């Protein structure tokens, strides 16, 4: 835990509770209130509640049990929403949707993975081969979905540079639908092998016509976004996801070898290196030594590597914290810039950031 570099009590309590949820039962009330509040602010309370197997035990304080059960009830509601959305999409797309690949939360839910429990998102992510994209989009628009962002810049940003269409939504429902054609933006320095992603997707048992990425690809997808996304204020949730996923799949011996092979195939060794190192530091995820040493071969020179990993760990640990302090603020900014750097070559980046600034001054609400 010395890698965490923080004395903030709520941070340490939250990480300890994530590692060993029964720790919550040892805390005095005021500290417990703080940890629960902090978990909520970090969007991980549902995930913490899902790990708290002691909820129904008679020795658990009733108030704690009630609070955690309420969070799980809410998570269930989001999951029902996601399941229904997948059902509606399948119905709307007809033959176009045969064999469509679910990504992220929708996939975890359909596969009943441990990582699905306690999630607070009803959004649905789908992966299609690029050549089907236009047909899928026009079919959904025909069937009543609408674009969430209608301004030209956001629309063109997504279509030209990103790996997904701008999000769609059915007006009567809350779930957003993201149609992906790759798992990373087109302009990224890493170009995952999209054909292999689609080709090696596996059928989801009990859900005819739905598929998910294979275990190794699913893990790499998570690791890529974890290591590349700029929003380290929310990534503690993704660190927990990675922890769940690696523990679940990692119990199969053949998983680690296939994970390394697929990382080579997609050129995703360095992001995976960061992901496993950081998750291990924060949550104690067991990683076999041969995996660590193989991935370390693709890391940046040791000093820089340690610096970046340390920065990531610090930002993740401080997720949801009020006034995290100068070091974290600096690292958040640095990682944000880094994420854009990874997403776009420099000239494009300069252009995009300039446009962003101009739009913000003009008062637009922008996402990218």
């Amino acid at each position, binding site marked *: 835990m010395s890698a965490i570099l923080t004395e903030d009590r709520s941070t340490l309590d939250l990480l300890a509770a994530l590692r060993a949820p029964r720790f919550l039962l040892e805390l005095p009330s005021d500290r417990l209130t703080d940890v629960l509040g902090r978990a909520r602010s970090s969007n991980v309370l549902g995930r913490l509640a899902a790990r708290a197997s002691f909820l129904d035990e008679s020795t658990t304080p009733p*108030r704690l049990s009630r609070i955690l059960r309420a969070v799980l009830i809410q998570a269930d509601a989001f999951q029902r929403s996601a399941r229904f959305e997948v059902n509606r999409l399948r119905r709307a797309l007809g033959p176009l949707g045969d064999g469509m690949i679910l990504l992220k939360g929708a996939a975890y839910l359909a596969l009943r993975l441990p990582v699905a429990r306690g999630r607070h998102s009803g959004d649905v992510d789908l992966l299609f081969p690029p050549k089907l994209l236009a047909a899928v989009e026009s079919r959904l628009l025909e069937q009543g979905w609408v674009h969430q962002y209608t301004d030209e810049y956001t629309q063109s940003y997504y279509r030209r540079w990103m790996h997904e269409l701008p999000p769609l939504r059915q007006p009567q429902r809350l779930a957003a639908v993201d149609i992906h054609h790759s798992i990373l933006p087109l302009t990224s320095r890493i170009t995952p092998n999209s054909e292999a992603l689609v080709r090696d997707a596996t059928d989801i048992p009990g859900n005819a016509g739905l598929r998910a990425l294979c275990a190794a690809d699913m893990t790499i997808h998570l690791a890529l976004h974890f290591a590349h996304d700029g929003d380290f204020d929310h990534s503690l949730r993704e660190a927990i996801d990675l922890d769940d996923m690696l523990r679940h799949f990692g119990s199969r011996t053949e998983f680690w070898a296939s994970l390394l092979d697929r990382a080579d195939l997609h050129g995703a060794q360095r992001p995976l290196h960061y992901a496993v190192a950081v998750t291990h530091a924060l949550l104690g995820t067991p990683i076999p030594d041969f995996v660590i040493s193989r991935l370390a071969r693709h890391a940046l020179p040791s000093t820089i590597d340690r610096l970046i990993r340390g920065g990531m760990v610090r930002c993740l640990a401080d997720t949801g*914290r009020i006034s995290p302090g100068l070091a974290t603020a600096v690292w958040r900014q640095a990682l944000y810039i880094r994420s854009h750097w990874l997403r776009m070559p420099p000239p494009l980046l300069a252009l995009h950031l300039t446009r962003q600034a101009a739009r913000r001054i003009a008062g637009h609400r922008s996402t990218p």
Partner: protein
Amino acid sequence: MRLGDTSLADLRSALTGVGCPIHFGPFVLRAKTNDASLSRTIRHLYANHTLASDEIADATISVDVGWDARRPWRRVARLRVDRDHQIATLPPSMVGPLMESGLNLAIALRAHTFLQIHAGCLEKNGRAIIMPAASGSGKSTLCAYLLAAGWRLFSDEFAVIVPETGNVVPVPRGISLKNASIALAKAIHPDPEFSPVVSGTPKGSVSVLRAPRQSVDRAHETCPPGAIVFPKWSADAGLQIAPLSRAEALESIIRNSINYSALDELGFNAMTRLIEEVPAFRLTYSDSIQAIDWFEDLSSRFA
């Protein structure tokens, strides 16, 4: 220990430090503020409420007055519920209403082990009347009148129901009154029971009539529902009572529910049981006294 028994200095110290955890029925809400006038308002409004000691809080609600980040020449009151960033800001004169809405949000957004209906709720003769109502229906005025007629206040905002048993749970806070209803309530309740009137809020002028000691002391006493009444004030209406069919009642009460859809099958079963077990009425009235008489008559049939 009651809030009213603490010194203002001690209360301020808690509000500016670790927070002041207060029992509200089954919930414990921890209040924080740096504002002196809000500290006095809290001490007055919740004088009858008990301080929680060594309890987990359901939420921490902070109202802080500080400089507006975007317009640094102005001071604003900022509402936070647990989170880092703010939920809402209002002018510093409105710290009271801001705290009240924070307390409402903290319950409404989280209490999913209960079925919550946006309704006034009072008890007499062992049964609770649930009054789902949109703004402007006169619900809060009716609550104030019923309180004066000896009814026990459960809440003016939330009917909180245990899905497994159908029992209604008190969450006593004050009755939020606005505009014309303030004067009406002041005619039948002593002035010291009201918080200072705050004008110019998004809802107009607001004041809170605090929950009487008895309602707070008996907050642990749940009871079954007795009737559902949808009130609507309308000048020249006289007194019109329309019984609702079960289908109409179910549809209307679902529309007024806060977290029905989060509760899935449990919520559906609880809601249908409620409709099957108690009668539902639409009450259209122009004279509050006449309406109260009708409520009294209704409650006499409970016992």
